[in-house]
């Protein structure tokens, strides 16, 4: 077994809602080895979004530790954390591009924040756009792009920081199956060529099946199962994993009908 690159230990997080408290994460421990594509699956409300937000501390856990590459994120100062975050890329379900700026400007944006000179910025951004297959859209605005294209811009933008980790929060959930495939292939290609550890949050087994090498199953804030994706897909042990696989099968059936 490789050494863990991302190590989460006994992570707990409770939200106070209007009617009592919600335990979003219950003592979750898992380790993600370097250079894997790690899928975290669960139904909505399973706590997967909270978990991924704890990996770059967008959410502060109530207890537990998050160690990335031997560094305990919770001990970092605000400024150190900010710098560290630049190497932990994140993409979202709704892309979150700057709508008032062109595609090129969007990709240049993280470089601008880091104070890279204009010329280098542009060069790198154009190269990244080429990598995601959108070099001809550099001058377009996000509103002129399709969902899949927007997500590709978001990926180019995230790569501008040369991250060593890429967190994908339901990155394909707003896309149709065709486009989902294209995005997943792109993520795989990025993983293969750049050696980035990818963590994918999803509620679709298909996504896991397509590209993940390892996976974890979350249900109501607790970890049900964790291990090789192939193993779990073939032989799910936990109830939650079995149920998620069943959902997938019914989905495929309806795909036939449709």
């Amino acid at each position, binding site marked *: 077994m490789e050494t863990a690159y991302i190590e989460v230990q006994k992570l707990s997080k409770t939200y106070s809602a209007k009617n009592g408290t919600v335990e979003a994460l219950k003592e979750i421990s898992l380790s993600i080895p370097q250079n894997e594509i790690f899928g975290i699956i669960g139904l909505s409300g399973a706590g997967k979004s909270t978990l991924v937000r704890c990996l770059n501390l*967008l959410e502060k856990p109530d207890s537990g530790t998050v160690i990335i590459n031997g560094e305990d994120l919770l001990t970092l100062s605000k400024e150190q954390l900010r710098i560290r975050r630049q190497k932990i890329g994140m993409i979202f379900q709704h892309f*979150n591009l700057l709508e008032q700026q062109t595609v090129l400007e969007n990709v240049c944006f993280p470089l601008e*924040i880091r104070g890279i000179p204009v010329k280098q910025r542009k060069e790198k951004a154009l190269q990244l756009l080429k990598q995601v297959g959108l070099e001809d859209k550099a001058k377009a605005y996000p509103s002129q792009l399709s969902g899949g294209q927007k997500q590709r811009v978001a990926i180019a933008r995230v790569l501008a920081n040369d991250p060593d980790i890429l*967190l994908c929060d339901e990155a394909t959930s707003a896309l149709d199956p065709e486009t989902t495939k294209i995005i997943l292939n792109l993520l795989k290609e990025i993983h293969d060529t750049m050696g980035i550890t990818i963590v994918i949050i999803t509620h679709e087994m298909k996504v896991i099946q397509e590209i993940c090498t390892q996976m974890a199953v979350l249900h109501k804030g607790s970890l049900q199962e964790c291990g090789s994706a192939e193993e779990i897909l073939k032989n799910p042990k936990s109830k939650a994993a079995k149920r998620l696989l069943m959902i997938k099968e019914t989905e495929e059936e309806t795909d036939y009908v449709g």
Partner: protein
Amino acid sequence: MPNLGIDVLFKGTNFLRLLEGLWVAVRISLISVAISIALGLVMGMLMTSKNKILKMILRLYLEIVRIMPQMVLLFVVYFGTTRVFGWNLSAEYSAIIVFSFWGVAEMGDLVRGALISIPKIQYESAQALGMTQPMTYLYVILPQAVRRLIPLSINLITRMIKTTSLVMMIGIVEVLKVAQQIIEANRRTSPNAVFGVFAVVFLLYFLICWPISKLAGYLEKRWA
């Protein structure tokens, strides 16, 4: 066709005087609007703060502005504070103070509304890119908030321009006061001027406010 009484405006320097009066009104409103927008942005950000005491103070300020008629505020500042504190405040400064006092509060509330309407994920994605708090506001949050603010703040700005007609009550000779003077002076020779002159005043206000509405429409489209 009845005599509309517009001819009065072409006597002597009447029309020029009217325009000078208009400039006074525009000057007061422009300065107040500029102050309101600048401080309103700050006020709005402060209003979203989690500090309870700060929030309560700002809330109280907003309520005072909402409850007090602008005319009462003008009287309090121009006649009241000058007497009580013995300072020398010109009518125009008093007007600018009152209008800014009003504008900052209302603008602040609009900014607050726009800011809290920006989804949390926008803050999150900015942080995930490793941006500092000020950068997040400057590059991500404010541009989106400003777009939502445009229609609302245009409403406030035109309202402020129109309300400058009240400042004649503290002795400022602005466009409406000049109009009155012209009408009074010509009461015998052309009694119909009361219609023509006020109609022209109406037109002048329209000419000031309409381009602002147009500009707002344009900006909204461009930034959409």
